[in-house]
Structures are given as structure tokens and as C-alpha cells.
């Protein structure tokens, strides 16, 4: 690919340019900074040329190939957005099921193309809304979902066979997915036609997001069982969304985000193969890997973010093919959702956030995302208003319909700079993955507190740079205005708790107590055994009208609860 005589000529020309053109300019106009750094800390050259790739012996077919082909650097599909746009999928849900149903209808009306459910903290932690610990948190950061009745209300008038639904649910993923299946099947929609995603990524909860219930081992068993069960029963369902977003939010650098995510992916694949042996299926990765999906963050540092997505895609393809022996191309594809980085939002001058999220959304699209959530400008202050969410959807629509960036596949592919950055991030991320593998994989690393400490360190270093002004943030440490933000804010209806609890009480009264008891006993026995897949038992309990909290209590009794070692 690189003709030696041409490379020589280019070297000469570049040296001439630096001496004759750049040096005189620098004398008159020195550059603004001594060093230009990316967020990862790479020191950037003034200019990137073919030489930067030639000196790495960069090979087009090996590094990029073609979209839809191994190693998928240029995208997982051959025609990308020329064929099908990414899914406009705003993460949403608050209050009770009726508030959320109303918001979903609104979002679909203004052009959202997929749903993404946010659940409140009690739901994520397996507590019914009348539990003492749940008291203050019902309906606050998402919809309260204690039983199948609430799921039915959320999806009133929404075509579950046509729309795909993503659910941010982890420690209680089986209970929530079961509710979704029960409601769909009651409408005559069989589970095998349902499309969507459960996050089901408990490892990242232990590392960064902190919504875990049980100790790491049974927690990963639970996640693994869901992956195995869904691979058989729900061929259109993504059984996990292996998430880097929360690492970035907690402070991870781009290379840490890639590495921790892929190391989690490796751990899950190993667990599925291992549990597959005792459950008799699956026997190889091609039987489940096509339904593994991913989730990353998009920050404002545009090119490094694009490089991050491209590097992650190439690395996962290698991991699946070389390490796990995948044969199907689909098993090697890193398909991902993106959310713009919440931590980059400022409470100061909140409308400026719209500009940040536009650049971040552009990074996700140039990086080849399959679906996208754009944060709303008011989210450093509260949950978003309808007006603010509408603008988030409009950001996506302007990029899709007006910008033209979607008209060709991977438009930044071949940029000397972006390809160099992609390689550099890949190298950094492999180093971190090797360290994790060296201690025996991610679960062991988590138990030792290592990724948690690494992220906390990165977060603190970043904050100190903000303090010193080395990282400028408009409205926070430069162009500061004293004015208080004056924007409308969403308030969750304080009556939510009573409404949800009164429906739940009625739901509990109208059950067949015997059938319920039997179903919960079976969950307990299945949890006590190591070699049984839990999912059918939990689905049966939810069908027998168990509440989320009841199922979770049984599992708490069998497995115990986890208190994390706190590292600062």
C-alpha cells in the first residue's frame, strides 16, 4: 500500500513545508498552547499526513476493510444510514405508568422511532413502592414498575409488535422482561416477534452505576441465564447491552471506557459458554453472540469520540473471531446504542447544552451508532420537560435530514488523523484489557476494586484540571455569568406514590394465593441450584402475578445482599 519512493518524497516535502512555511509563521504567531492534548492525553501533532499511517505500516484491508465486513471498523452494515437511519430512542419514564404512557405517545408523535424505558430506583433495586426504603424514590428517576398491571398501562395504545423497546434494567432484568412478555402475549403478540433490549449488564453496576442487589457471583449467573434463555426464545431481542456509558459518566477516559466494556463482554461470553455446559446449550458463541449489544457515551471531543467507536468495533470483532472462534459475521458485530454524555451538561447557561449535545450526537452518527439518545438541555437541573425533549429529537432529525453526514458510509474513514487516533485508542485499550485478563478477568478485578479505583482516579484528575482551568467549560470556568438559570422545570407529581401503591394493593388482593406461593417456591429452589436456568421460573412467577419485590425478596433470601467496598 505504501510505495517507498513516494513515502521518501513525501517526507522531504513535509520537512520543507515545516522549515519554509511553518517556522516563519510560528515566529510571528506562536501557537496558542505549548501542547494540544486529547481527553485521553494523546499529544497531538500540528498536522497528520499519510506518513503517520505509513510508519505504522497501516494496511487498509486489515484495519478497515469494507462496511459490513470484518473487522467492521467502517460500520456493521454495508449501506449504513443510506439504508436505514439509526433509531431515535430517548430514554424516558417518570412518575406512574399513566404519566409515562402519556410521555411515550408524545415522543412517538413528534418523531421518536423506538422506546427506551427508565425505571425508578425501587424498581431497579427490587423493592415494591410500599417498602420503607422505597418511600421517597417512587417515580422519581423513572417509572415505578412493581407488577404486570403497571406495564399494561404503560403500553396502552402502543403497538408492541412494531415498536422496539429498550429497558434500562439490570438487577431485576428478568422480572421486568417477564412483565413485558406477559403484557405482549396478553395482546396476542408472541415473544419471538418482540424486538428490543434489556440492559442486563450487572458487571458495570458493580464498577460504576451502583444499582446492584446480590453479590457478584449470583448476579452474573442471573444475567447469564437471561442471555441464554433469550437466545432461544426471543431471536429478535438483545439480551444484554454491555455498557461503557456509565464508566465515562463516572470518570473513565475513552480508552478505559472501551477496555472495561469489552472486558465485561469477554466475561459474559465466558460465563455463557461455561453455564452452557451445565445447561446443555449453547455449545458455541454463534448461538448467542449475535444478540449481544453495546452502549457507549458520546462526549464533545468529536474526533476522539468517533475514533473510540471505530476502535471498539474493530476490537470486539477480533475478540469474537480470534479468541472465541466465532464463525458468523453477526457474532463479531459490535452494534451499539449511544447516549450523549450527561456529565458534560452544565446547570449554568443551560441552553448552551443544546450546542454540546449536537456535537456529541454528530460524533455518535459519524461513529456509526445503531440508536441514539440526546440528553435534554435542562438535565443538569431536573428531569426534562416535553419542550426540552422535543429539541433533543430535533437535534437528531437535523443531523439525519439536513446535515448530509449520513449520505455516505463512514465519511471520516481514511482521515489520517482519525485513523491514527483509532489505532492509538485501540492500543491503549488493549493494554488495559491485558491487565484485567492478567488478574483473571473482570469479575476478579471488580472484587479487588481495581476498575472502580481506576475510574475514581481518572475522575479526580479530570476535576483538578477543571479547577485549574486546564479544561475549559463554558459557563463554569470561562465566560461565566452570575445570572441564575431561568428555565421551566419538570416536577414529578407528588401523588404518584399513593396512586401506585393503591393499585398495587388491589393487584395483590386479586391473586390466586396458592399458585403464587408455588411459583415463588419454585423460584427459590431454582436459585438454590447452580445448574438451572432461572428465567422460566421468574417468568412463571410474574405470570402468577408475583410482584417485583416478592421475586426479589426470594432471591435476596437465597443469595444475600452485596455491600461494596467503598473506594475514594
Amino acid at each position, binding site marked *: 500500500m505504501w510505495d517507498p519512493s513516494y513515502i521518501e518524497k513525501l517526507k522531504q516535502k513535509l520537512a520543507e513545508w515545516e522549515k519554509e512555511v511553518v517556522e516563519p509563521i510560528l515566529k510571528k504567531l506562536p501557537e496558542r498552547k505549548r501542547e494540544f492534548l486529547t481527553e485521553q492525553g494523546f499529544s497531538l501533532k500540528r498536522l497528520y499526513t499519510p506518513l503517520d499511517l505509513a510508519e505504522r505500516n497501516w494496511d487498509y484491508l486489515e484495519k478497515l476493510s469494507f462496511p459490513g465486513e470484518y473487522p467492521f471498523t467502517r460500520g456493521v452494515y454495508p449501506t449504513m444510514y443510506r439504508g436505514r437511519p439509526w433509531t431515535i430512542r430517548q430514554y424516558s419514564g417518570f412518575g406512574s405508568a399513566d404519566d409515562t404512557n402519556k410521555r411515550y405517545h408524545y415522543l412517538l408523535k413528534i418523531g421518536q422511532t423506538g422506546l427506551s424505558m427508565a425505571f425508578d430506583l425501587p424498581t431497579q433495586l427490587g*423493592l415494591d413502592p410500599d417498602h420503607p426504603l422505597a418511600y421517597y424514590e417512587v417515580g*422519581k428517576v423513572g417509572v415505578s414498575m412493581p407488577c404486570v398491571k403497571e406495564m399494561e398501562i404503560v403500553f396502552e395504545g402502543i403497538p408492541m409488535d412494531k415498536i422496539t423497546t429498550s429497558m434500562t434494567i439490570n438487577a431485576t432484568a428478568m422480572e421486568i422482561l417477564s412483565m413485558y412478555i406477559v403484557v405482549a402475549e396478553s395482546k396476542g403478540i408472541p415473544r419471538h416477534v418482540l424486538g428490543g433490549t434489556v440492559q442486563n449488564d450487572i458487571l458495570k453496576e458493580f464498577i460504576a452505576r451502583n444499582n446492584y442487589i446480590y453479590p457478584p457471583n449470583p448476579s452474573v449467573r442471573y444475567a447469564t441465564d437471561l442471555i441464554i434463555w433469550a437466545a432461544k426464545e426471543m431471536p429478535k431481542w438483545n439480551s444484554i447491552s454491555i455498557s461503557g456509558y456509565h464508566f465515562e*459518566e463516572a470518570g473513565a477516559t475513552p480508552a478505559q471506557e472501551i477496555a472495561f466494556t469489552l472486558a465485561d463482554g469477554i466475561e459474559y461470553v465466558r460465563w455463557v459458554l461455561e453455564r452452557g455446559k451445565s445447561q446443555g446449550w449453547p455449545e458455541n458463541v454463534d448461538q448467542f453472540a449475535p444478540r449481544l449489544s453495546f452502549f457507549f457515551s458520546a462526549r464533545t471531543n468529536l474526533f476522539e469520540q468517533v475514533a473510540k467507536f471505530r476502535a471498539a468495533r474493530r476490537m470486539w470483532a477480533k475478540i469474537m473471531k480470534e479468541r472465541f472462534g466465532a464463525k458468523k459475521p453477526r457474532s463479531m458485530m459490535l452494534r451499539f446504542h449511544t447516549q450523549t454524555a450527561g*456529565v458534560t451538561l452544565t446547570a449554568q447557561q443551560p441552553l448552551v447544552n443544546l450546542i454540546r449535545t449536537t456535537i456529541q450526537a454528530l460524533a455518535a452518527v459519524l461513529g456509526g451508532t445503531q440508536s441514539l439518545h440526546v440528553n435534554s438541555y435542562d438535565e443538569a437541573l431536573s428531569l426534562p420537560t416535553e419542550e426540552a425533549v422535543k429539541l433533543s429529537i430535533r437535534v437528531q432529525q437535523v443531523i439525519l435530514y439536513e446535515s448530509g453526514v449520513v449520505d455516505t458510509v463512514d465519511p471520516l474513514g481514511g482521515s489520517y488523523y482519525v485513523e491514527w487516533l483509532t489505532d492509538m485508542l485501540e492500543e491503549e485499550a488493549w493494554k488495559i484489557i491485558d491487565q484485567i485478563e492478567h488478574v483473571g478477568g473482570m469479575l476478579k478485578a471488580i472484587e479487588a476494586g481495581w476498575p472502580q479505583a481506576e475510574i475514581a482516579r481518572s475522575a479526580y484528575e479530570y*476535576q483538578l484540571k477543571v479547577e485549574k482551568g486546564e479544561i475549559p467549560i463554558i459557563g463554569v470556568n470561562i465566560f461565566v455569568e452570575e445570572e441564575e438559570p431561568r428555565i421551566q422545570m419538570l416536577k414529578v407529581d407528588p401523588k404518584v406514590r399513593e396512586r401506585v401503591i393503591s393499585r398495587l394493593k388491589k393487584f395483590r388482593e386479586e391473586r390466586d394465593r396458592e399458585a403464587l406461593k408455588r411459583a415463588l417456591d419454585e423460584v427459590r429452589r431454582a436459585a438454590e441450584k447452580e445448574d438451572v436456568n432461572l428465567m422460566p421460573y421468574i417468568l412463571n412467577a410474574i405470570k402468577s402475578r408475583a410482584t417485583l419485590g416478592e421475586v426479589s425478596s426470594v432471591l435476596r433470601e437465597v443469595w444475600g445482599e452485596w455491600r*461494596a467496598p467503598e473506594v*475514594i
Partner: protein
Amino acid sequence: MSASTPRLGDRKPKVLVAKLGLDGHDRGAKIVARALKDAGFDVVYLGVHQTPENVVKTAIEEDVDAIGVSILSGSHIELVSELRKLMKERGIDIPLIVGGIIPPSDTQLLKSMGVFEVCGPGTPLRKIIEIYKKAIEIRRGEKI
């Protein structure tokens, strides 16, 4: 952060930092805990999923000079009011500082409940450290 180590009588000022409620967003709380430590405070970091009851119990056991709680789930009014109620009942008269996603319209309400200061997103660390120092100085009636 600060060159000289603050002193309170014959010991360092001691603070408790906790995530109150079920919310798991602990980036801010950890950074504040670490910054206070680097500024010479003794820091008890309780971590996530703390109840008002446990915060008060630990504050008494550890005999701290101030409490900092972080809440990003929108439940700050209810959680802080419960915490203040317990603090009063047990006679713990030490400053309480609240951080997290707090709409500006709620700041006054929190202060009227007896919160010393509210540190929303973007508050500089040096300002946060000053707030803790000032709060403890006022409480103890001596310079640290």
C-alpha cells in the same frame, strides 16, 4: 488543595460524606470526599444507598463536625427533611451540606430546613472546601 492542614482544637476537622437514598451516582460524592481529604480533613466516606437513620447513627459514632450528603435522584426534599428531623431528635447540632442535582428553586426550601449550603453542579472544589471550613468554624466558634 490547601497548603496548611486545618486544625480544630487538637484534632483535624472530621466530616461524614454519604450518598443519601437509593441513587447510585457517586462521582461527585467521591470527588468531594477526596478533595476534603487532600485539604486536610478527616473524611468518613459512607458510600451509596444510605438511609437518614444510618447517616445520623454514623455521625454520632464517628463524632463528626459536619455532614455532606449527595442526591441526584430528585428526592432531596423528602430525604433531607427526614435527615434533619432525625438530627434534631438525636440532638446533633452540626452543619449539613447538600450536593447533587438540585433545582435552584429548591435551594431556599432546603436552607429553611436548616441546610447550611447547597452545592449544585459546577460548584468549584475550592468553594466547597471553603463552605465546609466556614460551616465548622461557625459551629465551633473557632478558626480552623
